[in-house]
């Protein structure tokens, strides 16, 4: 698995669109090394000082790129992400919302074949606090510190990051997994990474109803795969079965995927469980100070 730091050279796919352009600028403000943009047919243009190319390979030849962030609309996102993977970009962060699940399945399979880390789709992206971000999270919420964050949602992730910052802990690396049923990265791969990351002393896990990824993460922790302090918050206790709560992946099917099932599993694995978002930051402070 590959994440980012201040030296990661980033290409923005879909840089000429409204979202791509806006967030390319915010990323540069944060310190991300954004060196090029790609929009097929717009090669030779310039967006706020970032040169635009027709293809990722061309941009890579000129600038020696490492990683890509994709803002391309849903109908073209699979192609854009495959192009990035085949051009050797790693990680590939897919911000786009509304990608058909069939496309994501193919994207993730190709990434696995070429040993590429895919983050998303439908993710706020990832950030190494104080160094670099590939994502759409608000810059001011994060401060360099020792807490790693893994989240399935966007704004709830910022909410909890703000509490972590306010408690004086700050963040190391934070990753949004994405709100779709199928996504590239799972909790377990990240927990393994955080276990070995010297800058991370504790982890906040932000989950939500649907699927069984949180239960699997709990099994992994219980088996000794992750040993640092961990606090979790699971959204969706008030949700009712069979109704999709906004995210395509957030649905309770029968008795599976409930918030209680996830909280019990994580509690059983020794995690502190927050009743409300702020409790996560308080629990981590207690564990670390």
């Amino acid at each position: 698995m590959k994440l980012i730091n201040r030296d990661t050279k980033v290409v923005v796919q879909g840089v000429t669109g409204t979202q791509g352009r806006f967030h390319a600028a915010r990323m540069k403000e944060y310190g991300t090394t954004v060196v090029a943009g790609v929009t097929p047919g717009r090669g030779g243009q310039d967006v706020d000082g970032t040169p635009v190319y027709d293809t990722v390979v061309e941009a890579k030849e000129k600038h020696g790129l490492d990683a890509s962030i994709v803002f391309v609309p849903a109908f073209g996102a699979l192609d854009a992400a495959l192009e990035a993977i085949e051009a050797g970009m790693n990680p590939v962060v897919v911000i786009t919302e509304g990608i058909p699940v069939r496309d994501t399945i193919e994207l993730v399979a190709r990434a696995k074949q070429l040993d590429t880390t895919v983050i998303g789709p439908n993710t706020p992206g990832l950030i190494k606090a104080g160094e670099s971000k590939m994502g759409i999270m608000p810059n001011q919420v994060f401060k360099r510190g020792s807490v790693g964050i893994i989240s399935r949602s966007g704004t709830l992730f910022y909410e909890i990051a703000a509490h972590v910052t306010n408690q004086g802990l700050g963040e190391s690396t934070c990753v949004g997994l994405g709100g779709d049923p199928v996504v590239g990265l799972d909790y377990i791969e990240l927990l393994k990474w955080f276990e070995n990351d010297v800058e991370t002393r504790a982890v906040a896990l932000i989950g939500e109803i649907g699927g069984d990824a949180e239960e699997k993460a709990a099994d992994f922790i219980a088996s000794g795969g992750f040993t640092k302090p961990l606090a979790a918050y699971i959204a969706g206790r008030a949700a009712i079965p069979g109704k999709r709560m906004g995210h395509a992946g957030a649905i309770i099917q029968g008795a599976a995927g409930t918030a209680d099932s996830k909280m019990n599993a994580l509690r059983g694995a020794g995690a502190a469980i927050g009743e409300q978002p702020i409790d996560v930051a308080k629990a981590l402070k207690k564990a670390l100070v």
Partner: protein
Amino acid sequence: MKLLEYEAKEVFKRYGIPLGMSAIAKTPGEAKDAAAIIGRPVVVKAQVGVGGRGKAGGIKPADTPVQAREAAKQILGMKIKDLTVRKVLVEERLRIQHEIYLGVIVDRAAKCYTILASGEGGMNIEEVAVRNPEKIVRHNVDPLMGFRSYHANEVAKRLGYSGKKMQQLSDILLSLYRVAYEMDAELTEINPLIETAEGFVAADARLNVDNNALYRHKELEAKYIESFEGELTPREMEARAMDLTYVELDGDIGIIGNGAGLTMSTLDTVMLYGGRARNFLDLGGGANPDRIGKAVEFVLKDNRVKALFVNVLGGITRCDDTAKGIIEARKKLGDNKPIVVRMMGTNEEEGKRLLHGAGIETNDTMEEAAQKVVHLAKEV
């Protein structure tokens, strides 16, 4: 998007999946004519987008065209889980030797399509899955290789078939996977697939298409809103038509947030402090004042809402836009229901200034705001 049985069968037919003779009928007279053309005993089946129609009396056998007319008379217009039956499928009745289950699902954890098959199909397949999972054959499809005939043969073998029957079943499996893949299905199902002396026939059909993929299936778009009947409440249907992500619940506190996780968390926090949410409404990313106003108006107009809680964490969504939307909606409705707002992030100061100017208070944390709105809803 859930297709009705007959719609799914129209798709299955295009892919060569064997089906019984059938025709759709909107009146008892049409049902009688259909049974006469089929010329054999039939079943008359309600076409509604919810499960449990058999138990509700929505499936009736008929030996003659006159009986088919009478059955249709009883079924058409009946209510199944609040849905009025408007169409029936008149279908040749099959002599059942054996019932098989076949399905193609999206496996979230394995990140692929998965073929499911069982020799114990029929009404109790969910029970089989729980009690005797070993009786369900699973095959994960490698996305880069696809589902090939030797894979299908293997699945059919594991169900205990060989020779010609194995090949027949294998062909159906391959067709079913093609339906799932080409139709962008979240769920494709034949339950039961009936084994007769001659071969196999799909007696029922389910096909749920991924809403995100509808742009690839223009023929379905016209039926999109209609297909949510039964799945969504009337208020949810109205919200869907306005392009709002809204879920109806049974409390009395209206809730609007931005982002699915934060909005869910807002509901949970209100519940934690003893309140009950009336709804979930996620504005999504980057909503403008107009869209926010529309959402606020939609929730405030709900008679069961006693107080409204708007929780916005500004990123792409701006706090000043949120404030403008709230103020505009309130002015338009001339409404005095209490509103609690918590906002943080992009243009927070300006948003608060606007709200305070309009006499609406704000809170700095979600926890505080939740306690306040629960208190206010109890006072009303």
